């Protein structure tokens, strides 16, 4: 039996919340970030840098619409270049948000509480960036609506048997459901913002978006049921989205794509890259806004562990690819793997190995895992590694397929890089706006968490 004098586990490191936090203090700490706008210099520097990149994106898109996709480096045989690499990368990053908010909720992992709001926002913005690329890649983006089923005058329908068409439904459903889930989560917090706003204008604005929420006990009953069911819907949804993205590749007969491992390996890769992005963002933010009391060392530790676990599933995918190529005896598959390792894109392949296979292994040591600097660098490397992974999958498979006469090389152009940099800017600009105007941590859930702590161990 434990007496109060004998704490079971030592050290504040183990806590999911700093001692001494009350309902009032968590509400104040979280709502003061948008309401008081502390550290304006950090915010303005970050936002303006990101916004400059958004302008670059606008320029790149305007030039693309003027001249067509010939301004990109894509050509036969590599007709899927940066656009698809970036699409898969961004949508993968989005997956951690839904994983944290939906799957960890259903698994009763209370540590999700202080990070789910932020990661859901990250999901939305990453999906917004991802969604741009297939549209820009269309060539005639003004006809994007041809992808949707509607009774047109030619009596034509989209090809419902194609994973690319499934993508249209998967990504748009994912974006919509993520938005709904995020907004439903925000609703009571917007009411708190309304009630804490210092000026009448702010109170009106937050009041408008809170739709008149007032924490009525009967409303909470509907609310909780809805939130739980939305989580239950979002959990298989997130798996389905990246499965379908994986099928975009797996359904083709190209060596390096045509593999049954793709759907699960893509899902694991998505969560792997998503968690690394969460860590990359949260480590500096909790330092700047002094949120260490709410997002504790234990949160970082747990996220690092999820990153390692999914990283190993990804490594299994890499090994299986090579094993399958060797075991199947298919000369095209074997050539593709040799070409990846020693061919013209070998540098990308070895960067990928260093970032995704070697770097996360440092996290086996709990001392290194708890070192915020090391964790940040590893997370950053995994972000790079996951982008390079998609580059390797897309480009090295396409550039040398069955017939040597049709081989070619892919060279990304200035506009390819600008579009990538531009979406990174868009992502960060949206994140900065989110931090500026909305509570980055769910106050409602933190209050419940604090109350449950007070009620007893």
């Amino acid at each position, binding site marked *: 039996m434990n007496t109060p004098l004998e704490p079971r586990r030592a050290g504040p490191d183990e806590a999911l919340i700093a001692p001494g936090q009350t309902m009032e203090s968590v509400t104040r700490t979280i709502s003061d970030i948008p309401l008081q706008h502390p550290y304006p210099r950090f915010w303005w520097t970050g936002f303006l840098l990101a916004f400059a990149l958004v302008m670059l994106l606008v320029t790149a898109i305007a030039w693309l619409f003027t001249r067509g996709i010939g301004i990109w480096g894509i050509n036969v045989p590599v007709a899927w270049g940066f656009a698809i690499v970036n699409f898969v990368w961004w949508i993968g990053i989005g997956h951690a948000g839904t994983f944290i908010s939906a799957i960890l909720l259903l698994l009763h992992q209370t540590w999700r509480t202080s990070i789910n709001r932020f990661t859901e926002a990250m999901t939305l913005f990453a999906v917004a960036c991802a969604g741009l690329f297939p549209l820009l890649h269309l060539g005639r983006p003004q006809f994007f609506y041809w992808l949707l089923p509607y009774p047109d005058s030619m009596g*034509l329908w989209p090809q419902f048997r194609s994973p690319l068409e499934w993508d249209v439904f998967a990504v748009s459903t994912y974006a919509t459901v993520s938005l709904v889930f995020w907004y439903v989560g925000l609703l009571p917090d917007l009411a708190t913002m309304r009630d804490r706003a210092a000026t009448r204008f702010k109170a009106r604005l937050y009041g408008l978006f809170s739709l008149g929420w007032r924490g009525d006990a009967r409303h909470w009953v509907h609310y909780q049921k809805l939130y739980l069911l939305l989580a239950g819907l979002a959990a298989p949804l997130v798996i389905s989205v990246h499965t379908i993205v994986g099928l975009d590749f797996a359904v083709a007969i190209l060596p390096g794509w045509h593999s049954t491992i793709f759907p699960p390996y893509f899902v694991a890769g998505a969560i792997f890259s998503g968690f690394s992005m969460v860590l990359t963002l949260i480590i500096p933010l909790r330092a700047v806004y002094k949120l260490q009391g709410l997002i504790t060392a234990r949160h970082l530790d747990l996220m690092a562990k999820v990153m390692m676990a999914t990283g190993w599933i990804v490594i299994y995918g890499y090994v299986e690819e090579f094993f399958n190529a060797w075991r199947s005896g298919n000369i095209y598959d074997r050539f593709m793997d040799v070409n990846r390792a020693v061919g013209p894109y070998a540098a990308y392949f070895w960067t990928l190995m260093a970032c995704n296979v070697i770097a996360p292994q440092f996290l086996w040591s709990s001392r290194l895992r708890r070192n915020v600097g090391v964790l940040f660098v590893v997370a950053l490397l995994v972000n790079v590694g996951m982008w390079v992974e998609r580059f390797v999958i897309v480009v090295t498979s396409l550039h040398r397929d069955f017939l040597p006469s049709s081989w070619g090389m892919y060279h990304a152009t200035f506009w390819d890089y600008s579009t990538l940099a531009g979406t990174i800017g868009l992502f960060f600009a949206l994140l900065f706006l989110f931090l500026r105007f909305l509570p980055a941590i769910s106050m409602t859930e933190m*209050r419940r968490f604090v109350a449950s702590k007070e009620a007893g161990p």
Partner: protein
Amino acid sequence: MKPPVHGLLAAFADEASFRIAIRKLRETGCTRIDAYTPYPLETGILPQATTPVGWIMFCAGVLGASGGFFLQWFATHDYPLNVGGRPLNSWPAFIPITFELTVLTAALVGVLTLFFLAGLPRLHHPVLTDPRFKRASQDRFFICVLADDPLCPGESMRRVMADAHAESIAEVPA
């Protein structure tokens, strides 16, 4: 003439005294009680606190699934493409979109159901005029005994809530 009253609004500083007050009020047989909490509590605190959200979302999901499947079945029969004699109703290929539309319909109908049941958006409500109520969304628990129940005379209710250590008790105008 006295202005019309919405109800008697009491604030509680902690969940425990709030629960005691709710229990005592319910023991008096009064049903016209509203409660406001800064975070969701378990169901069953108040009478009539059940929710049809689950069933409505289930029906919406079934509708989305059948609608989604029908859409694809219809499209492939409306413009038949014979690919090597494969069946037009190639149902395994229709499953992903059917699934996505199931989730989409259920989620959207779910959130609209919440808005409908909770009467949102609602830009004004009598309790929102009370300055104390600003803390309902922060760190206070509120009980409102509505004025329109003939079985719950305000004065006796006031005593019940004061006995349960209410922080403040006051009427809110309608």
